[in-house]
């Protein structure tokens, strides 16, 4: 029995195939999902989705969204998703530095909110490359 994972973003389908296990980053912590999981609906935070195929773990950076697990079908709807292997390490590091600089420069509630979001995203992308186990 395998899980069927479907990761959807507004402009394309990022992943649509069978997996053995996933670890989902949610607002209330990480959830591990194995076959025959009870049906749940969860809000997905900005973080790393780990996918296990056979004995290999793949990472994917998710930028926040929603996940529904039902009858061995996992549907993850996110604003944007990038496979760890698709991210350029140098570019991600630079984006992280820029985001940190912007946060330091931010003044006022609104700029701080934006800068925080950007920083979290940049950090997730950098972490997605590093954690390849």
């Amino acid at each position, binding site marked *: 029995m395998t899980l069927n994972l479907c990761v959807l973003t*507004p402009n394309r389908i990022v992943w649509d195939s069978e997996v053995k296990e996933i670890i989902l980053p949610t607002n209330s912590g990480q*959830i591990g999902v194995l076959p025959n999981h009870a049906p749940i609906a969860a809000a997905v935070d900005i973080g790393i989705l780990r996918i296990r195929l056979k004995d290999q773990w793949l990472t994917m950076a998710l930028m926040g969204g929603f996940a529904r697990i039902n009858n061995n079908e996992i549907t993850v709807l996110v604003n944007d998703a990038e496979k760890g292997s698709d991210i350029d390490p140098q570019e991600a590091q630079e984006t992280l530095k820029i985001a940190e600089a912007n946060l330091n420069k931010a003044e006022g509630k609104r700029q701080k909110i934006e800068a925080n979001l950007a920083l979290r995203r940049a950090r997730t992308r950098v972490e997605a490359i590093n954690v390849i186990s």
Partner: protein
Amino acid sequence: MSCSNLTMLVSPKPSLSDASTLSFRSVLNPFQQNPATAAPAAPQRSSSPSSAPIQCGLRELRTRIDSVKNTQKITEAMKLVAAAKVRRAQEAVVNARPFSETLVEVLYNINEQLQTDDIDIPLTKVRPVKKVALVVCTGDRGLCGGFNNSILKKAEARIAELKQLGLDYTVISVGKKGNSYFIRRPYIPVDRFLEGGTLPTAKEAQAIADDVFSLFVSEEVDKVELLYTKFVSLVKSDPVIHTLLPLSPKGEICDINGVCIDAAEDEFFRLTTKEGKLTVERDVVRTKTADFEAILQFEQDPVQILDALLPLYLNSQILRALQESLASELAARMSAMSSATDNAIELKKNLSIVYNRERQAKITGEILEIVAGKEEENDHRKRQDRKEEEQYLAHRFRGSFNY
């Protein structure tokens, strides 16, 4: 052949009679017939509606014809490129559908499970409106007919309306054309300038969504409206204004007039061919909202889940608007380039006619010149011969009268 020759052709005879040398007059005399033929030709040329006033010079005409030919090639190529891009834009819309369908399904089901009247999500908070943010989607490049102008006119109209209502406003401009327009008008407060990409992706939509989200949540604005061009058909596009925030928890999208479209009804366009011509067909598809399974547990508080869903919805709405805007820009460019090509073909035809007429006139002139020169030479020799004869005779008779 320079311009001066022609002006002499059409000038009246008295100036010709001023010529001093014999040969000059005889050369120009045959041309006296030509003013009669050139004069009716000239008014003919200037009276034809689409041709320019009398151009002179075969060489200049030839350069003009070449440049018009090149222009025609370029405009035709641009039209084909735009047609190919419309197809790609259409594919992008089709790719976005699984996401929005699933989202709508989940949104409906969660709303059924909750009593949405007493939830408190920042994005759905309806506040008394004091300041409005307008997101204006324009294109990046020109040569697309009235596309950019119509959306900017609509934006100006909306700004005037808001001013009349006494509301403050700010603009978020997306696209190079809109950016340059607003930069030249510093009296309109612009919040941020964003560039559109060639094909709008989730990243661009995310940037706009972030901006709009932070503006709304930090209570700097109380309402966000989205201005984009709806793609109606290849020749028609409609600038529309949609209220983006505050969102309704049921996921309806409302027009400024309060007309709400159900989120489950999805309209999408398809580029097809009908009777050999490219046309666009719009289909309305209603997504199936299946009954939710009662045993589905919420991992977090339903409010938190709704809180996570609505930004997704915001994102997909913005992306949808950008895609439609791009599709209408491409359609406008296609029709603009197509009519430019037709105009270029007609202009080339007219120029060729003028060119040929002049070329023929020049050849006729040269032939007449040669013939007249030959005649003159013969006349001259005959006169010369007669003079010699007279002299000889006179000399002989003089001699004889001496006796």
